[in-house]
């Protein structure tokens, strides 16, 4: 009972401190609004910066996964080094079937990869020929969606081929044009065959657009007189399981080289790390500026109220309560500014998520590097929490110095201040 009474009294005490702190915040409305405004602007700008950068990079990575890498690739251990046609996946059919039975794997596609030359009356260009099974390929990659002219292996019955728009431009060809591919088979014999363009694609991969050609795997096998498969690409049900699945597949297929997109394209991982670092630095700068703003405001509030704080000490308010009062005032400033900033940030993010943020006027040629020129920013809920926590922590840290200044006051000296 006594304990409950004490608890109730403590709550009352805290309530009174909260009331004093809250009213103190609004004693100098102009000054408080300046700090709150700075917090609102800082947090909303940070929210948008996080959402924009995260989405910008995520789309770039998704594009790379969807057009070039898939989630996990399996090769002959020596294939990655020199892409030689002789390094094939033995028992490819068995490997593919086994992968399809793995519950963590969403889809599988196999590829026959050969380097060769594309010749037309207008020119010649080195290309990477991908022999694919269109239905399987469409479940792993987004090539079908990238076709901008013609169709995805339709309307051309014999030897259809898809090529990139840059290559089409270079060779001066269009849909239904004939193109001759020349390549060497496993035994080093030169083979040539005529293909007809079924479609022209425009992916986010400049490399594919300039030197990528996709033909039916059966056509390539027939020309090579071999059922060879050099590459098996896997798409996962849950991309979060990337490392786990990579490890699992490595042990399931010890004679193959199993690499996920992070290992295949370490530059993408680097971009993620660099973006996170840049965002962290931006956050640190904004929080630091906010922190100094808070220190300045609270220091002024303390210096202005030295006499009052002296009186509070004289009549019996102990130092921990004085300290708490100053920290509470600061937290209250942050609690008004922080959520307002987050809501404003959320509104800006939602607006651009819906309408898109068009960069084409500011960054011409961005698409040539695999980036989208329209960004649809979005931010996972936990980031709002991190930012809110960041504001409160900054406010508390910003309050410490003014609060220490307050508790160091001597009552007599403080009361006699004019």
């Amino acid at each position: 009972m006594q304990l409950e009474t004490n608890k109730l009294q403590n709550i009352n005490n805290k309530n009174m401190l909260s009331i004093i702190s809250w009213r103190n915040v609004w004693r100098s409305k102009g000054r408080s609004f300046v700090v709150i405004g700075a917090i609102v602007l800082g947090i909303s700008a940070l929210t948008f910066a996080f959402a924009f950068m995260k989405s910008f990079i995520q789309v770039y990575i998704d594009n790379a996964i969807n057009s070039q890498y898939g989630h996990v690739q399996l090769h002959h251990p020596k294939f990655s080094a020199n892409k030689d046609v002789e390094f094939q996946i033995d028992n490819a059919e068995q490997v593919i079937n086994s992968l399809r039975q793995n519950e963590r794997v969403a889809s599988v596609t196999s590829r026959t990869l050969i380097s060769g030359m594309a010749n037309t009356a207008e020119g010649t260009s080195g290309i990477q020929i991908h022999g694919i099974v269109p239905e399987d390929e469409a479940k792993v990659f987004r090539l079908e969606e990238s076709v901008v002219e013609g169709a995805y292996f339709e309307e051309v019955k014999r030897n259809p081929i898809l090529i990139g728009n840059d290559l089409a431009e270079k060779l001066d060809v269009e849909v239904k044009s004939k193109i001759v591919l020349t390549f060497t088979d496993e035994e080093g014999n030169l083979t040539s065959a005529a293909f007809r363009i079924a479609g022209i694609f425009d992916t986010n991969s400049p490399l594919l657009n300039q030197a990528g050609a996709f033909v039916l795997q059966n056509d390539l096998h027939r020309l090579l007189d071999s059922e060879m498969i050099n590459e098996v690409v896997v798409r996962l049900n849950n991309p979060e399981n990337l490392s786990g699945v990579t490890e699992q597949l490595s042990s399931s297929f010890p004679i193959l080289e199993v690499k996920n997109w992070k290992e295949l394209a370490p530059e993408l991982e680097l971009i993620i790390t660099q973006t996170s670092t840049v965002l962290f630095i931006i956050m640190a700068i904004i929080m630091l500026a906010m922190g100094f703003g808070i220190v300045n405001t609270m220091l002024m509030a303390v210096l202005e109220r030295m006499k009052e704080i002296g009186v509070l000490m004289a009549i019996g308010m102990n130092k921990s309560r004085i300290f708490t009062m100053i920290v509470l005032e600061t937290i209250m400033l942050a609690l008004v500014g922080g959520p307002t900033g987050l809501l404003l940030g959320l509104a800006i993010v939602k607006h651009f998520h819906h309408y898109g943020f068009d960069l084409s006027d500011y960054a011409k040629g961005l698409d040539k590097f695999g980036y989208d020129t329209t960004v649809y920013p979005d931010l996972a809920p936990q980031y709002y929490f991190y930012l809110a926590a960041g504001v409160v922590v900054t406010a508390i840290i910003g309050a410490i110095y003014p609060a220490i200044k307050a508790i160091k006051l001597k009552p007599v000296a403080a009361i006699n201040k004019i």
Partner: protein
Amino acid sequence: MSVISASKINKVYNPDKVPVHALNGVDLTIEAGEFSAIMGPSGSGKSTLLNIIGGLDSPTEGQIEINNIDITNLKESDLIDFRLNNIGFVFQSYNLIPVLTAKENIEFIMLLQKVDKKERHNRVMELLKAVGLEDKADVRPSQLSGGQQQRVAVARALASKPKFILADEPTANLDSKSSANLLDLMAEMNKKEGVTFVFSTHDQRVIERARRVMVLEDGKIVSDENNN
């Protein structure tokens, strides 16, 4: 029974540079229920003596006992608690908390003492009635006159049920009517509730009402007379 016992109090400011002797061996005893004034010209050491008695400042030498407790050796945190539970203060410039209403200003000190809600409420209403400001309970200090603010300050000082109240020139900023009302109020509290008051003043009206008058000059008590 003495509530305050000060012996051989010396206070020197700037001892290492240009020493200023504010108090020179002051001996003083205040009995419970006294209504005493310490008078003297500006710079005589009145406020310094009051601050030292109230535990707001420490003497360079000497000893202060409040209810037989030596406060000169108390830690700062203990001294704050000691002041809260034993000493009431009335300042020349009222010094109410501007963001709190009259009622809250009085209640605040009891909150610090962790007095329960019902008792707090009763005492606040009782004190507001005693100082004649029941109708100003929810008014902030800025909306009160100087005299009204000083009455709230007296009520605040009384709220914690202190052993004594130290009033540093309480009428200095008041007109004659407000001064008279305030002195009537404090005299009544002294008479009815037996509250001990010690004033520092050079206001003749206060001196006339005090039952004991001590005269301080150059940091020494040069006269100590009963006014009965």
